[in-house]
């Protein structure tokens, strides 16, 4: 409560206090009254009931007072909410992409991450994009949430007001690994953010790094959300692990026939472009989407380099 992590926290929490406060007063009041009546007008204490058919005055009173109170609640809810709809012009724009079951954030300078980095005390506006089904981007600490609907761009904005790391969840059920579809928001003070922003965009650095085999591939795998379904440490997720996969023999199901196949460049390429053509035994067809739109042959070559390093 009132952590102040974003510019919306205080108005939202005030609305919570108003709504819950009034509710608790009524809940306790009515419950105690009820219990008191049950005690006071018990058959033993009050053997003969007094017949009362009603009272128009009371009906009016307990219609009008709650009406006023709910209008007050409505007002606080609306007041806390309406600023959420109007992002300032100068806000920093980030494209937030959701897909089963990972996130990808794209910044104006072209960098892509699976974690949301934002600068402190600066308005950030997100374009919410879904590549498959409906997801919902939720940052509890910031009190913001909005669905990501395929075919439609919803918006969200906020100003992070405290440096630190916060959870970011998907709150719209989106299938098998819905509960694993979370990441972090990292709020950095502006100078630190700028350093990070520049470093990520620095292509010479990237090229330097890319000289080490597998590094570039690991980045591609990370930003494309492959790790939501494939582990690098041998554990089984929705898809087979990447560990030791290269050169290994797997049993796959091709058009209803089982066959053995050695994992080589060609097989991996096919697995990424047409995942349903060879379905690994023990795994579900249709889970992995085709990455034809997102990746090209050069990316896949990097991924293969990376897979080779996972012995």
């Amino acid at each position: 409560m009132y952590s102040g992590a974003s510019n919306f926290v205080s108005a939202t929490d005030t609305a919570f206090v108003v709504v819950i406060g009034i509710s608790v007063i009524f809940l306790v009041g009515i419950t105690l009254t009820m219990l008191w009546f049950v005690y006071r007008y018990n058959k033993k204490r009050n053997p003969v009931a007094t017949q009362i058919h009603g009272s128009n005055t009371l009906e009016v009173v307990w219609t009008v007072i709650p009406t006023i109170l709910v209008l007050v609640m409505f007002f606080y809810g609306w007041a806390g909410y309406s600023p959420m709809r109007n992002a300032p012009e100068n806000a920093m724009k980030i494209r937030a992409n959701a897909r089963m079951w990972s996130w990808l954030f794209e910044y104006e300078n072209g960098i892509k991450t699976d974690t949301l980095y934002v600068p402190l005390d600066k308005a950030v506006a997100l374009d919410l994009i879904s590549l498959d089904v409906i997801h919902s981007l939720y940052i509890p600490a910031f009190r913001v949430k909005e669905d990501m609907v395929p075919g439609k761009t919803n918006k969200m904005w906020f100003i992070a007001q405290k440096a630190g790391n916060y959870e970011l969840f998907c709150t719209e059920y989106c299938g098998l690994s819905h509960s694993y579809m979370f990441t972090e928001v990292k709020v950095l003070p502006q100078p630190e953010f700028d350093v990070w922003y520049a470093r990520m965009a620095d292509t010479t650095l990237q090229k330097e790094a890319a000289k080490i085999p597998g590094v570039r591939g690991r980045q591609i795998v990370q930003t494309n959300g492959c790790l939501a379904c494939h582990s690098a440490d041998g554990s089984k997720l929705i898809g087979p692990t990447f560990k030791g996969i290269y050169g290994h023999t797997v049993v796959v199901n091709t058009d209803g026939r089982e066959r053995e196949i050695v994992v080589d460049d060609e097989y991996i390429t096919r697995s990424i472009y047409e995942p349903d053509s060879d379905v690994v035994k023990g795994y579900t067809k249709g889970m992995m989407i085709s990455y034809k739109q997102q990746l090209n042959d050069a990316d896949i070559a990097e991924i293969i380099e990376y897979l080779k390093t996972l012995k």
Partner: protein
Amino acid sequence: MEEQTEHKYLPNYLEYRGKYKGLAGWLTTTDHKRIGLLYFYSMMVFFLAGVVMGILMKLELISPGEQIMGAQVYNGLFTLHGLTMIFLFVIPGVAAVYGNFFLPILIGAKDVSFPRLNLMSWYLYIIGAIVVLTSQFMGDGPPDTGWTFYAPYSLKTQTNVVAAVTGAFILGFSSILTGLNFIVTMHRLRAPGMGWLRMPLFAWALYGTGWIQLLATPIVGITFLMVIAERLLGIGFFDPAIGGDPILYQHLFWIYSHPAVYIMILPAMGAITEIIPTFARKTIFGYTAIVISSMAIAFVGYFVWGHHMFTSGMSSTSRWVFSLLTFLVAIPSAIKVFNWTATLYKGSINIKTPFLWAICFIFVFMIGGFSGLVLGSLATDIHVHDTAFVVAHFHYIVFGGTGFAFFAALHYWYPKMFAKVYNPKIANLGLFIFFVGFNLLYFPMFYLGMIGMPRRYYDYLPMFHNANILSTIGSWIMATGLLIVIINLVRARRGTGKEVNDPWDGKTLEWTIASPPIVENFEEIPVVDHGPYEY
């Protein structure tokens, strides 16, 4: 003439032998009381199955990581749990069981207007249930969409959505026909002298419910047909990939499913309204106000569906309009609570099991209602929408509301239905344990939602662990209470009969006739010359 005063022996509805004997007699019956019991027994089976699923889910959630099932199984389980509880338990709910059994009696009629149609409603219910259940065993596995079938996921998943949706479609007809039947019955078959404003309030609640069933259910029927057409024929209604609009699906779904909440809760409120005056030995406070509030709920309830979609990307205008309307629909429910409480004032209260259930009902229903205000207010809903908070809210309303009222009504009318008496001490003990367990099970979910735990979560971060442990323990306590309650009633049913025509000294018509009621309820149709609760 002698023969008019002479009492001939009239068989009660349980022992009556029609054309067929035994089970066949039951399956071909058109007696509204037997049909009420057919619903009762089938619903109890589904309810208990749903409870087992709920408990298994809670067991899975006792700790992070996999406990007893994988994610796919869990997702299928909450879908089936939701479908069972919503479509097979609370939507027919209090209306199908006690409405069928008592509505004709309460208004002094021999049966509903269309007894055969009434039986057909039950068959549609069973067929719909079977079709829903086949989805579990046929096709490519149990549906995993949640009971809301949100597009486009419901169009993309490989699982057997078509069967589940078809089942729900058929169940809709059962509901429509029951609503129609009740409306006509109340218009046509009230006993002489029973004007509209002399009808018991349970009947009024069923009247409001009937209209919702009749007018709202077709919308979800069409929507489900569209889902089927899209899945089987690829017609692009809802999937943007083929030109559809997923938000349209949500509108259509909630235009029905919000009023459906009132299909569940109005009859429950009606049953409570019967119980309170009987045990307060006092006429109901504000009869007309309660009638008006029932009809207002039924009416305004049509215009608030958008509160399920505050984060969906609707226009800002529709968001605040729906929020405002949602707050207004809270008023009639509040009025009922005030009137119930006022009825206790200067009563002569006879504390018996049904009364205790009714008091517990009011308490949990208030918590459900107040948490609904948090969800109706925009800023706060943005934070708790689609989190465990919502799960707590609707269990408090639907289970706490309809579920508690269902058991309150069962304990209230049990002696009338079966002419048997249950052990009140064990019944109260069961209720107490159930009540404690219920709150321990669901209250922590409010907290979990407030700190951000999303709903439909198979697994969670360690920060959510503690409250989940409490909640799971609550589910065990609640199950124990439920078991005690049920065993007590089953034992009573097996026990010997008692002469209990009017055990609570009630004033409505059902207490003037024999227990169990004779086949056509009344030897002679009563003439009514006063209101329902004249003490």
